[in-house]
């Protein structure tokens, strides 16, 4: 599997610093599971954070004297002598004969792999599955687009992240297959079409409430008659 479309530096930095909301982060982290090179880029960013962290100087007035802080900490350690030394590494999970289609953290969010999901029909072979998160500012869902099915030309108001999990689609910017990550904003006018051969399953994260012109809604329009 060769991934051609990766997470941008700006978005990955938001994830590295912790400022990226839960909904967007599901898409970024699920790409990371499929993409060793972006994991390496994330490590670099976290190391940059660590470097900034260790050269930062604590202002003397930041809080209680460090001796007092340590006295509290020490009391807690003595209070819970068994709290230390978690196992050095969790034992590796049983390798299933066939790797799941959905990587973590996505698989836990949807409660299983693709074949166990309760897809909701959009009609004419298209399905979707809304995913509940604690982040009310985004809308997260899986989409299953029939092989060869076109998506109407559309633009975006706000950000839209798409991660391909199975099959593929293409638009003016290229072909997107498993692991490929598309970051679209209002500047991008594109016309995605699922490639023939296999249904295209992807994760789509958009600003909530769903914008009228977003891909997801435009996809549903011909079927729902809205």
């Amino acid at each position, binding site marked *: 599997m060769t991934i051609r479309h990766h997470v941008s530096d700006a978005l990955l930095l938001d994830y590295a610093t912790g400022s990226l909301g839960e909904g967007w982060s599901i898409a970024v982290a699920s790409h990371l599971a499929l993409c060793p090179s972006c994991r390496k880029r994330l490590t670099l960013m976290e190391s940059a954070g660590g470097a900034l962290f260790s050269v930062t100087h604590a202002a003397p007035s930041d809080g209680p004297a460090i001796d007092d802080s340590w006295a509290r900490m020490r009391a807690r350690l003595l209070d819970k002598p068994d709290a*230390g030394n978690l196992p050095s590494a969790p034992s590796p999970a049983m390798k299933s004969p066939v790797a799941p289609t959905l990587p973590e953290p996505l698989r836990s969010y949807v409660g299983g792999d693709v074949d166990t999901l309760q897809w909701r029909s959009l009609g004419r072979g298209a399905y979707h599955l809304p995913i509940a998160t604690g982040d009310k500012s985004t809308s997260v869902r899986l989409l299953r687009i029939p092989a060869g099915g076109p998506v109407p030309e559309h633009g975006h108001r706000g950000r839209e992240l798409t991660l391909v999990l199975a099959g593929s689609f293409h638009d003016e910017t290229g072909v997107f297959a498993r692991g490929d990550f598309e970051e679209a904003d209002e500047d991008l006018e594109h016309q995605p079409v699922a490639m023939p051969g296999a249904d295209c399953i992807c994760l789509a994260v958009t600003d909530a409430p769903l914008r009228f012109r977003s891909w997801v809604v435009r996809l549903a329009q011909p079927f729902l008659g809205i």
Partner: protein
Amino acid sequence: MDYGGRVRLDCQNRSGMFGVIQLATAHVSAAMRVDFVQTAAASQVSIVTPGGLSRAGRLSRERVHMDEETEQDTRDAMTALLLSVGRTQDVTAFETLFRVFGPRIRSYMLRLTRDGGLAEELMQETMMTVWRKAGQFSAEKGSVATWIFTIARNLRIDSYRRSRRPEIDPNDPALVPDGDPQADSVMETRQSEESLRAAMTRLPTEQREILMLAFFDELPHSQIAVTLDLPLGTVKSRIRLAFGKLREALEETA
């Protein structure tokens, strides 16, 4: 390299903290004396191994700024301390780490919370996690500072923002493994850390400023653009340039 020796800590209260650690280990041959001074009123930590004071003599002349070699020794010492905590629940080693990182974690928490008491609580929770998870630390994967930073960051998200951070599961059968897991030896990691720090000091101020706002004030890049009154595209391209340079510096090391 094995730092599995005992660590002895004598603490004297002297306008802050002055600690002398003796790394009594059979495997560390070079004498190490590390001074680092955080601020005028801050703590000093000295690490001395028995038998050698030649470098100590040189370093004592230069107490305010760490030279590169000293910085490296400091990081090695921090690694040794954390490994000792993980292996034997070494409270004295943990105390040294606490006195070094505690104030930094507190400043980090304070930037977002603006509440000294809350920042102290979050610092205590972070160090408690460091204590509990020390056995999971692996020197091959990066520095102590980076490891502690990620713990502090995750705690800030969970406890302060009350949000979840979706993350990969290293044992997920769907995870696509790294091409060559043996590629980074400890030595390469250490060298690349040095290169990284050096490269970061060479970044233009406009790029460093963005990294500071991103890491410490936890501003997403879109908010950084608003804060600095810059077009979004400018912020994105500065981030791209900054990490391009850092990557380049690491590739030169490799």
